[in-house]
């Protein structure tokens, strides 16, 4: 019971051995004299049946961990089915949390601790555990029938096949029922509190504060106080069980991380994105209009924005994806900040309307929370394979700017950046998040609302021709944006549409030369969008290998880069937040390295664009498993690239 830390983000090259020795426990003065070991990071995975409440358990542990001040990163992983058959492998739902006393970037490669609520949860997750990991199993669920359901003829808890791990056999259900025997609850209801028993046990093991969870349970079950009290009783019983049973000989402490000064909260990508949209509306002075159709993993944004009508936010749950974006575009014509939220299959349906928005040159945000494809694909798993769809997935020449956040918290700034581009240049803008960012969470330093970018928009209110007439396609010479004159403005009545328009007047035009000019002008407008330079992290300035990523691969790539550097390797890193247009310095950056490695959760979409635009021999490294990269895996890739270069140098 010593090795709790894997090597995924060994910033200091340590072997992960915790510093041991008793330290005063936080928040409680009554802790018995069990040894306390200090660790610098831990990865815990809660796994159970879809109905076992693992996501809630993980969320609660995360909240307490955030409140305690650790840095953290989470990875919820659940099936697309709401209730797959109980006890089966497809029904397993899990929640992984990595927390540390220092800055971390990923939910971790391999769990140090697995909580398995049934045989299916154990079987589905066992392969991810390193030797020596701790496994806490609910022995009550290891019945012959349950074992047979997952194809185990012998009980792995008894046949010695788990010798490589540190196994804690806990009858979670029985203990929970005992703790609640006086609660008056029916057995079935009492049993459901077993996830809180497990949470209590883990909270004891890792010295998590407990009052937040008790407060949460009281408010969640405010209308059913007996259920609230039962859950709290189970939670406390779990804590006390850890404290008294001899099976758990040691507890662990992970000191708070030293983050930059400020006020923090924990935030998921979809929540950060929702707040970013509200902030963009506020800072632009425009009402927010969301037209959306429910789709995993984007629906949370619709839910969240629907809660904030007091910000003047209108949410429209449309009859389909097409109506969702259509309504948003209609609202944009009327002067709103129009937004539609969806995932890959929804983007496919919206393509024609995005093309219309390109032609109308109206601001519009298209938020794509990418998931595994093609078609329905893997609705609850992550992927970044919609880049080329966002880039090219329309008829005709229809360029659309693309913004992609790198972390859950960055979804906030990405929404503001997408709005800035849309409003300044009067264009639809893609915001490409993904399932991993959407559901994953991390601490977020809360920004000062008054210091967010000023996105103020001036509608056109006066004629723009010397003769007192108004031309809807008379462009700003700097941005090439056309005027945004909204209905209700006297004297500026005009008609726009998807048919090619004459430059300036906006009247229908089939003139060949005019069409050629308009196609090039729309492209030039997007190409000319001002985006920040890409920043290269190359501490020594002598690296020959550059690793370039975009989107949610930022965490694992950065963790891998740290590992390589900690072991003496030299590698430069850059991450793209703007994918159309690319930053102006990108070509020069790429040319500055002997080798460019591009890890992507697709089959090489960014690499294809880089090769086409910059004639650079960018090397793809790909994975489409519905899960983020692991830091160790990417570190190997970087080492191989460095090694190959050295070998080539010797030849």
């Amino acid at each position, binding site marked *: 019971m010593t090795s709790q830390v894997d090597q995924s983000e060994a910033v200091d090259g340590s072997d992960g051995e915790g510093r041991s020795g008793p330290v005063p426990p936080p928040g409680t003065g009554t802790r018995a004299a069990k040894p306390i070991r200090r660790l610098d990071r831990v990865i815990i995975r809660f796994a159970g049946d879809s109905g076992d409440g693992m996501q809630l358990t993980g969320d609660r542990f995360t*909240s307490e961990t955030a409140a305690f001040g650790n840095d953290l990163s989470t990875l919820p992983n659940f099936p697309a089915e709401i209730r797959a058959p109980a006890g089966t492998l497809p029904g397993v739902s899990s929640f992984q949390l990595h927390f540390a006393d220092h800055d971390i970037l990923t939910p971790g490669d391999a769990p140090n601790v697995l909580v398995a609520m049934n045989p299916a949860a154990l079987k589905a997750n066992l392969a991810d555990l390193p030797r020596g990991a701790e496994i806490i199993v609910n022995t009550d669920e290891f019945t012959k029938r349950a074992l047979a359901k997952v194809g185990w003829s012998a009980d792995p808890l008894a046949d010695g096949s788990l010798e490589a791990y540190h196994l804690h056999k806990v009858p979670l259900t029985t203990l929970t029922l005992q703790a609640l025997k006086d609660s008056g609850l029916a057995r079935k209801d009492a049993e459901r509190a077993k996830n809180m028993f497990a949470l209590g046990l883990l909270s004891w093991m890792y010295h998590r504060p407990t009052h937040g969870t008790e407060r949460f349970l009281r408010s969640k079950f405010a209308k059913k106080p007996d259920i609230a009290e039962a859950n709290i009783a189970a939670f406390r019983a779990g804590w006390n069980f850890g404290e008294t049973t001899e099976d758990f000989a040691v507890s662990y402490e992970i000191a708070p991380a030293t983050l930059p000064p400020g006020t923090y909260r924990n935030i998921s990508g979809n929540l950060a994105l929702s707040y970013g949209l*509200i902030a963009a509306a506020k800072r632009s002075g425009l009402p927010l209009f969301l*037209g959306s159709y429910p789709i995993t993993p984007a629906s949370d944004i619709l839910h969240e924005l629907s809660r904030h009508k*007091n910000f003047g936010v209108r949410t429209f749950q449309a009859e389909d994806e097409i*109506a969702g974006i259509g309504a948003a575009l*209609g609202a944009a*014509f009327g002067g709103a900040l129009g937004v539609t939220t969806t995932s890959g299959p929804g983007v496919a349906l919206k393509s024609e309307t995005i093309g219309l928005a390109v032609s109308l040159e109206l601001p519009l945000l298209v938020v794509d929370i990418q998931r595994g494809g093609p078609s329905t694909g893997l609705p609850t798993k992550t992927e970044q394979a919609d880049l080329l769809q966002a880039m090219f997935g329309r008829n005709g020449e229809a360029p659309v700017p693309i913004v992609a956040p790198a972390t859950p918290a960055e979804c906030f700034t990405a929404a503001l950046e997408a709005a800035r581009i849309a409003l300044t240049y009067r264009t639809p803008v893609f915001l490409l998040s993904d399932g991993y960012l959407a559901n994953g969470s991390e601490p977020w330093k809360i920004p000062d609302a008054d210091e967010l970018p000023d996105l103020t928009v001036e509608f056109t209110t006066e004629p723009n021709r010397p003769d007192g007439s108004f031309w809807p396609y008379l462009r700003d010479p700097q941005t090439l944006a056309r005027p945004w004159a909204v209905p209700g403005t006297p004297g500026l009545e*005009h008609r*726009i549409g998807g048919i090619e328009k004459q430059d300036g007047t906006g009247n229908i035009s089939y003139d060949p030369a005019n069409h050629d000019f308009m196609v090039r002008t729309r492209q030039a407008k997007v190409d000319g969008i001002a985006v920040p330079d890409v920043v290269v992290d190359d501490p020594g300035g002598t690296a020959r290998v550059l690793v370039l990523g975009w989107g949610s691969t930022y965490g694992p790539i950065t963790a891998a880069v740290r590992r390589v550097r900690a072991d003496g390797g030299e590698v430069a890193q850059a991450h793209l937040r703007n994918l159309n247009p690319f930053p102006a310095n990108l070509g020069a950056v790429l040319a500055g390295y002997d080798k460019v490695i591009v890890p992507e959760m697709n089959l090489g979409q960014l690499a294809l664009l880089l090769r086409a635009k910059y004639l650079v021999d960018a090397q793809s490294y790909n994975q489409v498993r519905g899960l983020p990269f692991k830091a160790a895996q990417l570190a190997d890739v970087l080492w191989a690239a460095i090694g190959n270069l050295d070998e080539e140098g010797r030849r």
Partner: protein
Amino acid sequence: MTEDRFPSLRLVPKSDEPQSPKDFKTDQEVRWCPGCGDYAILAAVQSFMPELGIRRENTVFVSGIGCSSRFPYYMNTYGMHSIHGRAPAIATGLAASRPDLSVWVVTGDGDALSIGGNHLIHALRRNVNLKILLFNNRIYGLTKGQYSPTSELGKITKSTPMGSLDAPFNPLSLAIGAEATFVARTIDSDRQHLTSVLRAAAEHEGTALVEIYQNCNIFNDGAFEVLKEPGTRDEALIRLEHGRPIRLGAEQGVFRGPDGGLHLETVTEANQDRILVHDAGAANPATAFALTRLADADTLHHTPIGVLRDVRRPVYDTLMAEQLDRAAADRGEGDLAALLTGSDTWTVA
């Protein structure tokens, strides 16, 4: 007072001075085929708009794709010529976010009932404050003459040389089934009737669906001739007027049958008290639905025109605005700093 006459335009700014039909004409050359029924509809709408008494700049025409959907280019208001079938969705977003606008949708039988059928029925059930003008010529014109979802069964066209196989939609039955609160039918060539129906639609709060029988003289000429010809129209056309007995020509009337359906009978002294009296405001849509089934789909005999249904139901955009107002009243105007901070924070010194 305008305000009383057009309650649906209560929130739309009124015009300071009288407007004329000319104010609603654009400098764009009208490009429909010579003789197209669309010209008559355009002229009628341009003539009618000043009657609304609202500011021209607060009027928006949104269309989809098809011959009829060129309409916005010829109206000197704000306008959008969008994509095939989607005009009701786009107009919904506009109307729901701008209660100060009068929003009109212009669409055709292919645009509204084929590719855009989904958006049409959902706009109707939501009861968004939209006026939908559905130009029905029972043919695809812009794509040069294929059968449409309102073409009669067995229609011979380029895509159906042996006759079309699919049964047509009855647009007004469909609309009533979709919970429409206002359903009317009129004819392109009858300016006076067309205008009266436009007026009733404009007065209606919520979604108004106006089916306009429109002649495509190139690909389906004479489709509605039986309703127009002096020699036949008296026997084919039923003019509905709220509160009046429903009669066809001099001798026939509409009666309710034992099965709940409607039929025509020769009016006699004995039965004249039982002639159905038209009640557009009936809460139960059954009679309005039965009226939509009265016409013979092939011959168009016994075709009712006028307002079939006109009832009150809460309007989507009004309800949406009320929710926003209520949220602000209950919780105060949104405070961005408070939202970003939330309730679960910690501070690093």
